[in-house]
Every structure is written in structure tokens, then in C-alpha cells.
């Protein structure tokens, strides 16, 4: 690099725009490989003609020095390709697009908006990467080896990038067994907040404007959209809205076995049981308040909700009325 006679350290005032512009142009010419002796002589004359030219050139030298670690380095070509790669415009565009999609999803549509529509999640679920229909369950493997079981009427979006593995639960319920990847943290977003699992097996469920989390292995860090946080260790569960995080309690093992097609009832009110069955069964399932508080025990096949209903009918004082295939109601036995 051509050095000028600049003894002073940082100049105290900013050189004029003209001086800076000329310094940049001189630099571009002198280093181009095409500068002649006459050019160099002219540059010397330019430097000598004004103090602020020397000041401006001082900056050129300072900036050039930042490249010195590359200049003498055998890996400099590799370094430059890394720089180019990091600057690839397509990568930038992709990020912008993702940004817009995220904004649309969360900002314009709003989570609250679609969750109150009669067919929740349909609009979002159609755009999701993985989804199940009502009554359907599915197990998938993500590209990093993470196992995800999708429960009935579930939709998730996958956004795996260089820095992180992000899943968005759009509707329904998932059970996740994360694969380890020390370089890319895993996280699950729900409309109410985010979950940061650490080597875990856990379930996440969206229900009536709340996120339910239960951890079976490892730990999960919960952060609500409002910034509240808690750490759930194995065997613990909680639920939260955007603003409020419930107390951590002992995890209900029933929240995990659905992945094996089983609905486990351990002394739960029939009303809760029916609410669960509704998730797996298209159509209307009514429950008479007179039997809503009956207690339910046992394991039921959730892949076949009609059979589960028949089983309930055989052990409890209830009658299942099939008015139409899509309209069933549970009433007291007469």
C-alpha cells in the first residue's frame, strides 16, 4: 500500500466532502494496477496542496490497515469467498421474505383473529408444512432427526436455518423428541409464547387461547409473549396465555400417551373426556350436564373415537344417541 507522509494521528476535524471523495478516487486508481508514474506524481502534488487532503488520506490508510490480516494470509481467497457467501443477495431476499411472512402471520392476521373463527386454523394450517386432519395422527422426522408426533387437527411450520431450528405450532398438539444439535438451538413458537427445550421429550398443545406444555424428559424453558418465564423440568407441566403463566404442576402422564393412540383417563370428569374426544372426532358431540361430572377411568382408543364412546357407554350410566353420523349426544341412561 502506498504510504503518504502523515505523521499526525487522528485528525481533529472532519475533512471536507471534496477531500474525502478525492482521497477515495486516488486510492481506487493507485491500487488498480493501472496507475502510471505520472499518476503517482499527481497524487503527491494533491496531498501536498492542502492539509485536509492529508487528513482524508489518513483515513484511507486507517481503513486499509483493517485488511492487513487478510493481505499476507495464505487463506485470503478463502476468506473472500466466505465474505461473498455471507453477502449472497439470495440469502438476504429469503430473510426479507421470511420476515414479511412472519409479519403477515402474526401482525396482520393476528393469532387471536383466526383462533376465534369457526374453523380455527384452517387458513394458517393450509400454509403449514405438516398437518393432520381431525382424527388423524402422524409421526414425522425433521431434517435434523427430531421426531414429532402430530395429534389430531394439528398444523406446524418448520423454519430451520443456519442459526436455529424453529417450529411454529399453528394448531393442535405435538409431542417432540428433540435431536441434539449444539450449534442450532431448538425452539417452538406458539401464539402465546416460546419454548426452548434442552434435550427433551415434551408435548405442546393449543387450546382455547392457551398453550399447554408438559415435559417428560430433559427440561423446557418457557417464555410467554409478554416476557414471563419459567423452567419446566421432567415430570412438570404448565399452561400460559400471552400475559399470564400458570403455576408449574406435576405433569399428567395422559398428556403423552396419545402418541401411542391411547387416551388415558384417571379419575377425570366425563366433561373433560368428551372435550378430548371432540378433538379426534369430526362433527358435533354433545354432553348432557346431568352426566358431565361422572368420573372416567381406563384407557381408550383415540384412533377410533366411536369405539371409545361405545366403551364408555358399556361401563357408565350413559346413553350415546347417534342422531346423525355427525351429530352425537351423550345423555343419562333412562
Amino acid at each position: 500500500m502506498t504510504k503518504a507522509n502523515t505523521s499526525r494521528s487522528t485528525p481533529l476535524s472532519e475533512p471536507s466532502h471534496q477531500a474525502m471523495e478525492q482521497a477515495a478516487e486516488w486510492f481506487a486508481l493507485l491500487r488498480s494496477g493501472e496507475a502510471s508514474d505520472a499518476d503517482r506524481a499527481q497524487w503527491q502534488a494533491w496531498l501536498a496542496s492542502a492539509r485536509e487532503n492529508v487528513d482524508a488520506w489518513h483515513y484511507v490508510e486507517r481503513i486499509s490497515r483493517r485488511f492487513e490480516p487478510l493481505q499476507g494470509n495464505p487463506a485470503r481467497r478463502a476468506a473472500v469467498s466466505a465474505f461473498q457467501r455471507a453477502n449472497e443477495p439470495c440469502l438476504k431476499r429469503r430473510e426479507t421474505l421470511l420476515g414479511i411472512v412472519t409479519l403477515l402471520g402474526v401482525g396482520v392476521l393476528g393469532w387471536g383473529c383466526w383462533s376465534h373463527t369457526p374453523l380455527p386454523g384452517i387458513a394458517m394450517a393450509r400454509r403449514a408444512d405438516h398437518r393432520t386432519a381431525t382424527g388423524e395422527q402422524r409421526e414425522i422426522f425433521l431434517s435434523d432427526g427430531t421426531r414429532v408426533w402430530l395429534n389430531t387437527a394439528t398444523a406446524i411450520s418448520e423454519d430451520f436455518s443456519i442459526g436455529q431450528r424453529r417450529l411454529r405450532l399453528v394448531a393442535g398438539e405435538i409431542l417432540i423428541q428433540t435431536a441434539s444439535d449444539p450449534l442450532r438451538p431448538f425452539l417452538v413458537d406458539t401464539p402465546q409464547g416460546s419454548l426452548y427445550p434442552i434435550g427433551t421429550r415434551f408435548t405442546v398443545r393449543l387450546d382455547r387461547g392457551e398453550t399447554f406444555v408438559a415435559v417428560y424428559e430433559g427440561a423446557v424453558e418457557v417464555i410467554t409473549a409478554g416476557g414471563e418465564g419459567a423452567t419446566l423440568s421432567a415430570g412438570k407441566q404448565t399452561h400460559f396465555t400471552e400475559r399470564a403463566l400458570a403455576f408449574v404442576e406435576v405433569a399428567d402422564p395422559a398428556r403423552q400417551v396419545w402418541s401411542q393412540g391411547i387416551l388415558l383417563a384417571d379419575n377425570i370428569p366425563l366433561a373433560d373426556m368428551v372435550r378430548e374426544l371432540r378433538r379426534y372426532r369430526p362433527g358435533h358431540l354433545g354432553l348432557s350436564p346431568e352426566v358431565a361430572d361422572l368420573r372416567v377411568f381406563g384407557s381408550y382408543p383415540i384412533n377410533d373415537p366411536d369405539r371409545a364412546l361405545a366403551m364408555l357407554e358399556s361401563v357408565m350410566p350413559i346413553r350415546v344417541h347417534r342422531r346423525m353420523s355427525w351429530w352425537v349426544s351423550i345423555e343419562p341412561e333412562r
Partner: protein
Amino acid sequence: MSTLEYEPITIEHLYDDHHAWLQGWLRHRLGNAADAADLAHDAFLRLLTKPRRFDSAPEARSYLCTMANGLCVDLWRRRRIEQAWLDVLAARPEDLVPSAEHQAIVLEALLEIDAMLHSLPPKVANAFVMAVGCEMTDREVAEELGVSTRMVRKYVARAMLYCIRLDARQAVEELPHGVPCSV
């Protein structure tokens, strides 16, 4: 020597009121608790070194959000450079992989250069880094980028002017001012 006359900036108050949510917010954005803790720390460190007055909690909150967002973007850029460097190294035959020391030197230089050039269009920044970092002639850069040598010259001049102005502005900002001179 006189003691401080003005009201002290209560960074402790700010910290108590805002650190927890800021860290939560960062964790939400970054997907990583450790990074979030680091950046929240950095944000308050900046407030310590360049104190500001806030008239209301929302004002402080929005300022911190904006600052933290900038820190996130910086972090993402750093990560992107680091990843690109690792990718390039991984793609090289083993005998061409530089020593650990050279790798570290290069990465540090790249991060500094990227921080300086990141607002420039990628083509301009790439031309500049090739020309100056690899000491390539305009002709060589032109061939690599598929543009004319005249264009390369323009790119280099433009990038250099941009850097000079950035540096000059910083130098002026860093000058001590408003400090009473002691005799």
C-alpha cells in the same frame, strides 16, 4: 474539584425495571437463553457508557427495544460470517485448511470488515474486499465479478468513500466535548 451537580442517571432503576423483560424479549427473538443474557448485558453496558435520560418507562422500553434489535442484527451478521467461514473451510481439501491461528485471524478481520461494509450493496462490498483484501488488480476483480474494470474502479472508490465518512464521523463523535477543561 466539584462533585457531580446533575441528577445521577439511575441505571440501577433502569436495570431493575427493564432487564427481565428485555432478556425475555431477546430470548424470544434469538431462540437462545445464553445469547439473550449476553445481549441484555451489552445493552445495559451501552447505557452505562452512554447514559441517557428517560422521562417515562415506555420511552425507556422502546429505546431498549430498538437498541437490542440492533444488537440482534449485529449478532446475526456475525453468525452468518462465522458460518460462511466454517462452510468454506469445510469445503477445502484438508491440506489447504489454514492453521487454527490463521483461521482465527481471518475470522476476526472478516467480522471487522463486515461491520464496516454491511450497509453497502453486496457487489460493491465484494469488489472492495477482493481488491483490497486479496490485492487483486481491477482486471482480476472484473473477471471474477463479471463487470467492467471501470465498474470495479467505481465500486472501490465508492466503498472507500463510504468507509472514510463513517470513520470521520466516528472520530468526531468520539472527541471529548462538553467537558470542562481543568487547568
